[in-house]
């Protein structure tokens, strides 16, 4: 470590605690309290990365979250590896490993650097312009473009860390713990408000905490001493919770904010075991006080991006907070007084300043006189026109500015340096304010956007509100917080401030050069390599909107979102276009303020907690009996039960055959069940189903079809009349929640006069369906007391029964076309009744079947599945289900739509059966159906919706929708596939037992 760069004066650095870390495979040392950036600077390292497009050498430029250049890969190849981390925010710990990004083979020698030489042919929009033709070459270009795109490497294995989410409710949230934030938090907490104070840094106090200058004092104390006492006082307040290392990522409407609390990133890896790494705080605050401060502006001149060029305020922070000098021969370049504070910090430690270049002709402040007294040469009215040095700045050239600041005059002077501090004044950090929906206004005097219209109960204070002077900050914070919180007692008696700074500034967005603009590289967006030249080019090519210029030049589109240069881009646009800056507005500030890890966003919702799933009461039996499962909505449904290494096809063929030849058993518990009660229940069903319900006798069941108001099929199912005013409706598995929602909607909003109550009872019952020729025998063994004779218990009827004294409901209904019974019993008895059925059916080849066999069996009968054979564009008429639409009923949901000009068209897509020429050929579901393959373009008539090989019919069967299909019975159509055309014939959709003989067979 070159000792000449480290100064033992900082109380924030623990010099007794040496920390070793690895950067680009080399071991370095720093101290506890360092950031990766400060430790690298202390080791004399400026060059840390390469820029995105030109691969230019880049160094550490700032000391905070606004850093555009020093973004690194943390933890190299381990499972924790993380790209695009700002070295200025990483607190070092023993064993830290980091490396440079976007360079190969190394940051010192990078092949991609050739792009810098090619830059004259890589203007804004280069990719759009170059790779457009010939169009067929795009796929070849794409490979290379993708290869060179992106920064850093994403991790390849699962993240070992733990993350979580937490809700916080508070009266007052204060964002930012600088002077104004600390004062606001104290005033709020002391006046009885439950207050939360957050700051992204590991310490409180912002940039004032290391302000030891004699030139700014509060109540005659050095600012940092006064502030330390304040912090000490508030840390004891009961009403106040303080969270450091907590960065607000998003400020949404209604004072809802997201913040990331960093808990372990500063600890050595071995101390992170079983600890939460980051917490996403979901904060709902009654009042929000934004005190996010401001970001220093760089200056835009030729080659303003070399390693060794830093913001002047960053140089001050590095020396005052970390005791690190960024260079031994410094030059400061400024348009305002801030740089003189940096100069004083350097002078106090005896660090050499070669010169100060100031844009201003007149400088009139105590602090500047003091600097001059120290024999520092100040070039007044000068600008930097160029810089030199490839991997580190070593020289600059300066020229005198003309009176209007538009050109440079006189001779060029060259000055040596190894570090250049730049200051272009300050930009209020209004990001969070605008995210919340706040409207900005432009203040002409010092060319800043400041908060104007607040969309919620919030206020901005301090320099994010455009107050830059110490006196202004304190005075305005006191008055506005008193008003905002409506309190009399400010907790502060008179606060006297002294400041040696003057707020004058000479703002020139793009500094003039002796070269033509085309020959300069004046970077506006450092990370994305967007230059002033690019912005001017975009304007020349006709772009006017700031949002378009941004996307065309990629200004502000890096991971730093242009926190440094966006204002300059706006300035250059308005200067070039001759418009007023305030009229352009700004680009949209979007969350997150700084990037969030995916881990933080998902919290604990990973692995088996990613999504909930629902299991039926019989689930464990299915698992024990080798079932494969299918996801239906959130349900896990048994799909098929493979036996002896069967594949799915073999299992389904066996199950289907058994269900028709002997007996099958299905777990139908997932079907939606809605309990409907009330004196108007029948009338209600009349209105929601297409068929008539008033005359359904108690103890009978009926199939119903539900439409949307537009006439399209929405859901179907069997509803049973349990009593005079009591029904139980079944819905499709996936549609259950939506059907209940829709029914509630009509009941509450359109028909509040109806006496009807709905409750979901899906989870309360287990539903077991037993079908096939032996179903009657099996059920009679399970429920011996129940009379199953056709006279007493005909198809489509219901009986109350008891199994071992447990009440159950038995319906004789069928979705397979076989004689079948559905037993509904309290859910917790589901598994034992299922097992009883299995035991009773042992001698009858009872075969459990899953959803796949269920689909096959119903397709043989031509029964539709809503959502598979329908897609919200089919009416019951299109489905050839005219029989279920009541002609007599005056009204039901969707009735009027059934005879709109569009729904009565003859050539609508209609459901038909499809039989392949070769009975062994099974169609693909979703395949297109055409009549003429020679026509170009081929006219698509429809598509296949369901397709199976039927073991009972010994042939392939399919359902599909075809334009005008109803009148095409017997017609030949073609299914064009990738390598063949399959001939099909349009058939009746009912393939098996159209007369219902199996259903009504005497068993």
């Amino acid at each position, binding site marked *: 470590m070159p000792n000449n760069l480290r100064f033992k004066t900082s109380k924030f650095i623990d010099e007794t605690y040496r920390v070793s870390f690895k950067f680009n495979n080399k071991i370095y040392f720093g101290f506890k309290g360092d950031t990766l950036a400060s430790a690298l600077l202390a080791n004399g390292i400026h060059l840390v990365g390469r820029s995105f497009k030109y691969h230019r050498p880049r160094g550490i430029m700032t000391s905070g979250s606004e850093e555009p250049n020093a973004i690194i890969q943390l933890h190299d190849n381990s499972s924790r590896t993380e790209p695009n981390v700002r070295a200025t925010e990483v607190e070092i710990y023993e064993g830290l490993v980091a490396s440079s990004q976007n360079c190969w083979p190394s940051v010192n020698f990078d092949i991609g650097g050739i792009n810098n030489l090619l830059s004259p042919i890589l203007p804004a929009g280069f990719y759009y312009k170059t790779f457009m033709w010939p169009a067929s070459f795009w796929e070849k270009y794409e490979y290379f473009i993708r290869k060179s795109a992106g920064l850093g490497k994403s991790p390849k294995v699962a993240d070992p860390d733990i993350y979580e989410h937490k809700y916080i409710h508070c009266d007052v949230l204060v964002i930012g713990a600088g002077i104004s934030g600390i004062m606001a938090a104290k005033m709020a907490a002391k006046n009885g408000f439950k207050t939360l104070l957050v700051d992204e840094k590991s310490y409180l106090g912002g940039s004032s905490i290391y302000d030891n200058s004699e030139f700014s004092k509060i109540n005659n104390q050095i600012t940092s001493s006064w502030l330390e006492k304040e912090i000490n006082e508030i840390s004891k307040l009961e009403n106040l919770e303080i969270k450091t290392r907590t960065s607000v990522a998003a400020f949404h*409407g209604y004072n*809802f904010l997201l913040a990331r609390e960093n808990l372990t990133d500063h600890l050595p890896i071995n101390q992170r075991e079983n600890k939460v790494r980051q917490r996403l705080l979901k904060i709902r605050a009654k009042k929000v006080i934004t005190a996010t401060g401001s970001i220093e502006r760089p200056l835009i001149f030729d080659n303003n991006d070399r390693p060794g060029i830093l913001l002047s305020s960053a140089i001050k922070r590095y020396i005052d907070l970390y005791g690190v000098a960024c260079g031994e021969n410094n030059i400061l370049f400024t348009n305002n007084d801030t740089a003189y504070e940096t100069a004083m910090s350097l002078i106090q430690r005896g660090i050499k300043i070669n010169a100060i270049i100031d844009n201003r002709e007149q400088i009139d402040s105590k602090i500047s006189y003091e600097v001059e007294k120290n024999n520092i040469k100040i070039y007044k009215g000068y600008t930097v026109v160029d810089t030199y040095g490839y991997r580190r700045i070593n020289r600059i050239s300066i020229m005198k500015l003309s009176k209007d600041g538009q050109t440079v005059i006189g001779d060029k002077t060259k000055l040596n340096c190894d570090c250049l501090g730049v200051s272009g004044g300050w930009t209020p950090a209004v990001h969070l304010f605008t995210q919340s929906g706040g409207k900005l206004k432009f203040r002409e005097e010092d060319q800043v956007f400041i908060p104007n219209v607040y*969309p919620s109960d919030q206020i901005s204070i301090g320099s994010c509100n455009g107050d830059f002077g110490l006196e202004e900050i304190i005075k305005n914070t006191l008055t506005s917080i008193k008003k905002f919180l409506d309190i009399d007692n400010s907790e502060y008696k008179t606060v006297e401030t002294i400041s040696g700074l003057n707020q004058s500034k000479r703002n020139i967005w793009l500094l003039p050069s002796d070269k033509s603009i085309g020959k300069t590289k004046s970077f506006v967006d450092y990370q994305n390599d967007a230059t002033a030249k690019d912005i001017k080019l975009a304007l020349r090519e006709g772009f006017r909107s700031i949002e378009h210029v941004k996307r065309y030049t990629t200004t502000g589109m890096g991971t730093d979102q242009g926190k440094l240069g966006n204002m300059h881009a706006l300035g250059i646009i308005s200067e070039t276009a001759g418009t007023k800056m305030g009229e352009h507005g700004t680009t949209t500030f979007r969350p997150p303020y700084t990037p969030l890890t995916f881990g933080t966003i998902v919290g604990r919702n990973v692995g088996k907690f990613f999504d909930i799933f629902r299991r039926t009461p019989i689930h464990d039996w299915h698992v024990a009996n080798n079932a494969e499962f299918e996801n239906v909505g959130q349900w896990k449904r048994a799909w098929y039960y493979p036996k002896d290494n069967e594949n799915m096809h073999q299992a389904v063929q066996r199950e289907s055959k058994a269900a028709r030849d002997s007996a099958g058993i299905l777990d139908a518990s997932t079907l939606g069940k809605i309990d409907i009660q009330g004196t108007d229940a029948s009338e209600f069903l009349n209105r929601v189903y297409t068929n008539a319900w008033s005359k359904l006798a108690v103890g009978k069941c009926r199939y119903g079809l539900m439409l949307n108001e537009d006439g399209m099929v929405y859901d179907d199912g069997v509803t049973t009349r349990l009593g005079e005013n009591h029904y139980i409706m079944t819905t499709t598995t996936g549609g259950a929640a939506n059907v209940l929602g829709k029914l509630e*909607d009509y009941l*509450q909003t359109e028909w509040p006069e109806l006496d009807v109550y709905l409750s979901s009872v899906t989870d309360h019952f287990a539903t077991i369906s037993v079908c096939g020729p032996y179903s009657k025998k099996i059920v009679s063994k399970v429920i011996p007391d129940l009379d199953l004779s056709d006279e007493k218990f005909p198809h489509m009827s219901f009986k109350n029964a008891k199994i071992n004294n447990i009440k159950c409901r038995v319906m004789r209904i069928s979705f397979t076309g076989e004689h079948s019974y559905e037993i509904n019993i309290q859910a917790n008895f589901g598994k034992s009744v299922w097992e009883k059925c299995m035991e009773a059916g042992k001698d009858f080849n009872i075969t459990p079947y899953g959803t796949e066999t269920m689909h096959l069996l119903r397709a043989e009968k031509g029964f539709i599945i809503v959502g598979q054979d329908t897609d919200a564009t089919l009416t019951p008429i299109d489905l050839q289900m005219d029989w279920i639409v009541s002609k007599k009923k005056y009204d039901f949901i969707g*009735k*009027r739509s059934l005879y709109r000009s569009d729904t009565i068209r003859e050539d609508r897509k209609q459901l038909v059966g499809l039989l392949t020429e070769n009975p062994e050929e099974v169609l693909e579901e979703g395949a297109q159906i055409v009549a003429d393959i020679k026509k170009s373009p081929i006219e698509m008539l429809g598509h296949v919706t369901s397709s199976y090989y039927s073991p009972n019919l010994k042939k392939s069967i399919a359902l599909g929708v075809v334009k005008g299909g109803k009148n095409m019975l017997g017609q030949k159509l073609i299914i064009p596939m990738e390598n063949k055309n399959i001939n099909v014939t349009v058939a009746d959709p009912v393939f098996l037992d159209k007369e219902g003989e199996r259903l009504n067979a005497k068993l």
Partner: protein
Amino acid sequence: MFLINCPFCGEREQSEFKAGGEAHIVRPKQPTELSDDEWAEYLFMRKNIKGIQFERWNHIHGCRKWFNMIRDTSNDQIKAVYKMGEKPPVK
């Protein structure tokens, strides 16, 4: 994220609610007597304005009740909430 004052439960997070489109569109009592155009007006035509809008909301993960809301779509300010069947408190 809105903080919605459900008329039945009080202030709750927006995530508990579901938006249900424009409010005060009454289903015609005699749909069969309407022309195609008149029915289409009821079925399809909805306002989408920048400014004050009357909306239906459902406290779907709460009391399951539907209610009405007056919202300024330009700044998402909720001006009022009121029960189904009640007259809007502001015009």
